């Protein structure tokens, strides 16, 4: 409610500002112009949004598999964790944007380099938060499981994994956000379709209102995916429902 009101206020101020100061429309278009572009370019926008969505979804899925897989393997084997953790951190230290053109060179103008770039950005928060979540198990419960002589995998399935799920979802939400920017940057560096590609094309043609329309669509896509993940989270973590409802109510 409050968020919607704020957005409305911002739009009105923006529109009024543009009417008042009349900047060249290739620098700052009015919201009404953006809306018009959104409508007139709808076919192109939607087709390209579809491509970007596909990249994002593929990236999130891959990140989930790779990220959770790595985190579980690291938790299961401290030796593997000791070996893998430095490399994981290193993977975030080199300038990914700089190697992206090489990815394009290797993989061509396909979905692959964009998905790969998005995965490179988004799997890291997932690994870190899943790994930490798996380590943060109630100490009393662990003692109890130890007294039963529970095997490693059984304890993992019955205790550690459910305990880590909240952290997994935190990582997943970060991964969604990072995948959006990863996919767009990937498209920037070499693509023939997608919202990132479209933004670049429109801006080279000085079509500012169309650029804004594409950005708007991208933001809507990201917010939508994020909200969807939140909904899935609330469904899966039903036993935290009461606490979460209260948090949700405060936000609204």
């Amino acid at each position, binding site marked *: 409610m409050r968020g919607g009101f704020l957005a409305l206020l911002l739009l009105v101020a923006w529109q009024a500002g543009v009417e008042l100061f009349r900047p060249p429309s290739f620098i700052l278009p009015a919201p009404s112009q953006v809306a018009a572009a959104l409508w007139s370019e709808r076919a192109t926008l939607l087709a390209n949004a579809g491509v970007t969505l596909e990249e994002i979804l593929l990236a999130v899925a891959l990140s989930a598999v790779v990220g959770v897989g790595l985190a579980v393997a690291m938790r299961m084997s401290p030796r593997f964790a000791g070996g893998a953790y430095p490399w994981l951190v290193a993977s975030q230290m080199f300038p990914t944007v700089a190697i992206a053109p090489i990815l394009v060179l290797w993989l061509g103008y396909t979905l692959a380099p964009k998905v790969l770039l998005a995965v490179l950005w988004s799997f890291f928060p997932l690994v870190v938060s899943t790994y930490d979540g798996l380590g943060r198990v*109630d100490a*009393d*419960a662990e*003692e*109890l*499981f*130890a*007294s*039963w*002589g*529970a*095997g490693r995998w*059984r*304890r993992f399935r*019955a*205790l550690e994994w*459910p305990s880590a799920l909240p952290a997994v979802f935190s990582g997943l939400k970060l991964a969604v956000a990072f995948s959006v920017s990863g996919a767009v940057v990937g498209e920037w560096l070499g693509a023939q379709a997608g919202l990132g590609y479209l933004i670049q094309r429109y801006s080279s043609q000085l079509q500012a209102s169309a650029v804004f329309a594409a950005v708007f669509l991208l933001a809507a896509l990201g917010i939508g995916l994020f909200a969807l993940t939140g909904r899935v989270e609330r469904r899966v973590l039903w*036993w935290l429902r*009461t606490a979460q409802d209260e948090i949700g109510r405060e936000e609204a």
Partner: protein
Amino acid sequence: MSRGRAEGSALRFDAVTAVYRPLPAAGRRGTEVPVLEELSFAVQEGSFTALVGPSGSGKSTILKLAAGILRPRAGRIEVCGAPPGTRPGEPLRASYMPQRDSLLPWRTLLENALLPLEMHGREAQALREARRRAEELLPVFGLEGKGDAYPAQLSGGERQRAAFLRTVMAGGRLLLLDEPFGALDALTRRQLQLWLAGLRRSLEATVLLVTHDVQEAALLADEVLVVAATPVRALERVPVRDRATAERRVLELLGLREAAPLEVGGA
């Protein structure tokens, strides 16, 4: 203390020393907390023994050592003639009931109760049978109709009874119970006390019960072990022949009562 032969005792501590390491709290250097110092005692098979002592005296520590959760720094512990703890596939010798219930919030009461057997790798057939047995026990534990409820839907006392049921379902012959009746009303408490006394007779189980309640100890146990000082070097044994005398003696050992001018054996 006498070094009795291993057979015949369900639990034996032999010169056990136990120490808690300090937590590396930020900016502080903690010191080690010695809890047990060369403590020896034994719990006879088939007996019902109560462990009584003030808060923080080391009762839970003794139970955790017996359950194989904590390792002693020195000394030997034997549960039914073998080291404490269980390896996967080997039947549980001791069922431990922690002071905090630790029920898993994403499992129903019955699913929680079956967790020890499940973690132990019983086959589906055995688990189905165990489930039937657990369902039969629900009314006894005052949990009728609650089998499919989740822990969040249970009251504090119900949770405690669910944890008790889980302990019994685990199937160990030695029950290590850490204040199992703490959060219960007098009526339910009495009911479960009676049931526990019956269970022990029918299963020929050995019970080591930690309690704050001297009356409960004297009512249920054949023998009361009193923790009088920490670090614990010895446990005072008070056999229960008649309840009043035993209660008085336990209170005396705890320093809660002037020494009665009565002749009580021991010390």
